[in-house]
């Protein structure tokens, strides 16, 4: 494992004087659970935005908060926000920092508010099929608790081990099974929040009159409110699960199969179509896993010589992405993975119908093996990215959605725009009757760290506008944060004034997570 440069907490900028002056009040607001220590501030300085990893490799630190607080009640959250309004301090709600867009970066300092102490999971209400949970509950903890009682939330983001319910709501998360269970906004029946005014409240459950405020709060990324809890819909744990893989002669054929599957009213939990290069190499995952050696037990060869060799290799290959991307034209076949779950007879019946459609479109039946292999390793991809970064490259992903008429056009445009800056892979998932999501993976390299960062920035400046101009949206499920803030503002057009007006209603002093969403 490559050792990242040591980042010294001592090199942090000192907390701002106005926060130090407010520290006694902060301590009082959260029963003493506040810190201005450098180590705490360093720990909360970043999320999983790959740009931060590039910075850290250069010995740079993302902007840290001036203080960190750990409130344990809605009243404490309210006290912190009211204090922030009086003292003109920024408040950055924080779940577990799994975001990849800089949504928790303290760009103007301020107070980062960790909400993980809201960790209560109430008993499932079996009549209304719902469960009330705290915003700080980790996804995996929640799902295990539900499974033990015979239920599932149906929400499986790849960050499930390190993301919270509050983070899901703040960033409009989607899980790998979203085609059946929906995104997080489809699962939340009501939410408990503290607004930027400092008022705690609970959103109403249907039926009610007037506009539904939930769609404004969900996806607000801490700029309007802090989530403290939610009532979520749950489903009986599936009794049956059917996997099926197909291979098509082209991406276009595979996309057509997905479209027809949804047109027929079938609802696979998992739909993943890999582009040709992904199909040829990455998508052929095997169900067996190589045991991982902990970093502390790795040899000098593994920690030093091999990474140095890999860095040279990646510079010579990924540093010339145009050549690498041209190699992709040698591949054309596209692999589709389907998984149906729930009532066993229903899952089987839907699988039979989907199989008939795929065969009509010339899909080769690969049986259940590809799906099972994916299922077993479905959370591994995020960890593979860490290794890529360690080997001296940059890696990132871009997820967008588009109507069916535009999906392939978006794919081609983004591929063309990004190819000169990074090696490009894509898979299509999170499908709906009217379109689907495209999930691009980018891996690149350059001779120096500075050039690498510049290439990373060029990549985003090329890829996201290409997606939007071709008919895609700004984000399907990663959110906006800082990374896509300008793109969001541009895409809103005059609508950005409406967003700003909503901000004025719920956060009149602008203390909540400044800079995110371009607010």
């Amino acid at each position, binding site marked *: 494992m490559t050792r990242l440069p040591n980042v010294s907490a001592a090199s942090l900028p000192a907390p701002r004087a106005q926060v130090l002056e407010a520290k006694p009040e902060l301590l009082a607001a959260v029963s003493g659970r506040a810190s201005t220590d450098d180590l705490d501030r360093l720990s909360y300085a970043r999320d999983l935005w790959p740009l931060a990893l590039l910075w850290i490799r250069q010995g740079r630190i993302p902007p840290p908060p001036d203080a960190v607080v750990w409130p344990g009640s809605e009243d404490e959250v309210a006290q912190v926000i009211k204090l922030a309004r009086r003292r003109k301090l920024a408040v950055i709600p924080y779940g577990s920092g799994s975001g990849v867009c800089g949504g928790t970066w303290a760009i103007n300092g301020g107070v980062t508010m960790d909400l993980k102490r809201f960790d209560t999971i109430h008993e499932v209400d079996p009549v209304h099929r719902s469960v009330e949970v705290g915003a700080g509950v980790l996804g995996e903890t929640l799902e295990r608790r539900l499974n033990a009682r015979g239920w599932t939330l149906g929400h499986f983001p790849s960050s499930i081990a390190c993301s919270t319910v509050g983070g899901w709501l703040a960033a409009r998360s989607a899980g790998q099974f979203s085609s059946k269970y*929906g995104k997080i906004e489809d699962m939340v029946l009501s939410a408990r929040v503290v607004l930027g005014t400092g008022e705690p409240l609970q959103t109403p459950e249907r*039926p009610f009159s007037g506009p539904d405020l939930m769609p404004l709060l969900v*996806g607000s990324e801490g700029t309007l409110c802090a989530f403290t809890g939610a009532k979520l819909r749950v489903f009986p744990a599936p009794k049956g699960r059917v996997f099926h893989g197909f291979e098509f002669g082209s991406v276009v054929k595979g996309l057509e199969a997905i479209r027809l599957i949804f047109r027929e*009213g079938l609802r696979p939990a998992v739909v993943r179509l890999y582009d040709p290069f992904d199909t040829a190499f990455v998508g052929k995952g095997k169900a067996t896993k190589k045991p991982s050696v902990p970093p502390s037990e790795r040899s000098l060869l593994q920690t030093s010589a091999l990474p140095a060799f890999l860095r040279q290799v990646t510079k010579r290959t990924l540093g010339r992405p145009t050549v690498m991307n041209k190699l992709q034209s040698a591949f054309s076949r596209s692999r589709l993975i389907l998984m149906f779950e*729930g009532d066993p007879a229903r899952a089987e019946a839907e699988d039979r119908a989907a199989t008939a459609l795929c065969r009509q479109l010339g899909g080769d039946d690969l049986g259940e093996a590809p799906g099972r292999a994916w299922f077993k390793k479905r959370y591994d991809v995020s960890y593979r990215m860490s290794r890529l970064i360690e080997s001296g490259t940059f890696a990132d992903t871009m997820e967008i959605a*588009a109507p069916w*008429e535009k999906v392939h056009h978006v794919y081609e445009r983004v591929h063309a725009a990004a190819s000169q800056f990074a090696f490009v892979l894509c898979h299509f998932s999170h499908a709906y009757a009217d379109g689907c999501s495209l999930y691009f993976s980018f891996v690149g390299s350059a001779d120096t760290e500075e050039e690498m960062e510049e290439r990373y920035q060029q990549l985003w400046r090329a890829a996201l506008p290409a997606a939007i101009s071709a008919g895609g949206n700004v984000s399907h499920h990663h959110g906006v944060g800082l990374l896509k803030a300008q793109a969001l503002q541009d*895409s809103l057009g005059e609508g950005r004034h409406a967003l700003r007006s909503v901000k004025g209603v719920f956060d009149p002093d602008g203390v909540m997570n400044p800079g995110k969403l371009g607010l």
Partner: protein
Amino acid sequence: MSVSKERALGSWARQVEGGLIAEPRDERELTEVIHVLADRGVALNKEITLSRARLTHLDPVAADSMTVAAGAGVVLNDLDAHLKPHGLTIGPLSPAAMSLRLGEFLEGPYAGLRSIPGGRLEPVCTSLTAITADGRRLETSRSPRSAAGPDLSALVLGAAGRIALVTRGVVRCVPFPERDVRVAYSFPSALAFVTALQRSIAEGFWPWRVHADSKSGRVIAEVRWAASVGSVERDRELLSRCVEEAGGRGAGEAEREGPMSVEHESTWDAVLASLEQGRALQLFRLSLTTVVARGDVEGVPLNEPTGWTSLGGRLLSLDSRGVFGGAP
């Protein structure tokens, strides 16, 4: 407002019995209406009525994504008739909803919602265009789902035109069904009926309408659904199994004429309570949370606006010029 002022307003204004009416022909004229009224300190629906009946533009149908962009003045029944030659339909909305114009359906108590397979509610429009009180254009993303900030369509849906006025929406459609079936079942209790329906909906059954009649503790229900041949048969198998597991069985005939009362958005608890009191109900837009019900049942009436939640009421301050009625 006097007739002389009417002339000064623009070609979109005319005097009718009962007052002035503004009838913009397109989005540009609607924007002009808003600016002119704001400049003159005139509030819509107080001194002048707004009609969007002339906003009837229809874009060509997008066959792959099964969507069509329609003006706010298009009546949903008319839109459905337009879709049929394209092999599409709006899908199962309630009869009262289908008689509304698109704008009324989106902004009114129905909040533009429909149920989809899996028991979820979602807006019938994937994208909206609206004019806000400051005369600016608000257009939401056309992509199927977004995580790019808050969903600003919430400023339109169910907001009674008090925050923004919708001019058009991209309507999600479904394939025109190959088969339309009605099957009657008998249940030993209201609870058995509700359990069977909820379970089948959670597994993907998508009923278009249910008529439930409760007599002497038993419930006789006629369930109607429509889809492709294969889908109808898959749903029949699932529903029959869920009915049996709840203690029900097939029945010969059921009453098809439901009560002709106001439609309400009701919870399943309210449906259960109503049936346990021996009432008959017609159910539409069946989701896992709420249904649209006709009959004697508790719920929010959908024929006229009712009071907003206090949280929703805060958004009225976005109409700072008071052109849509302003803050209370």
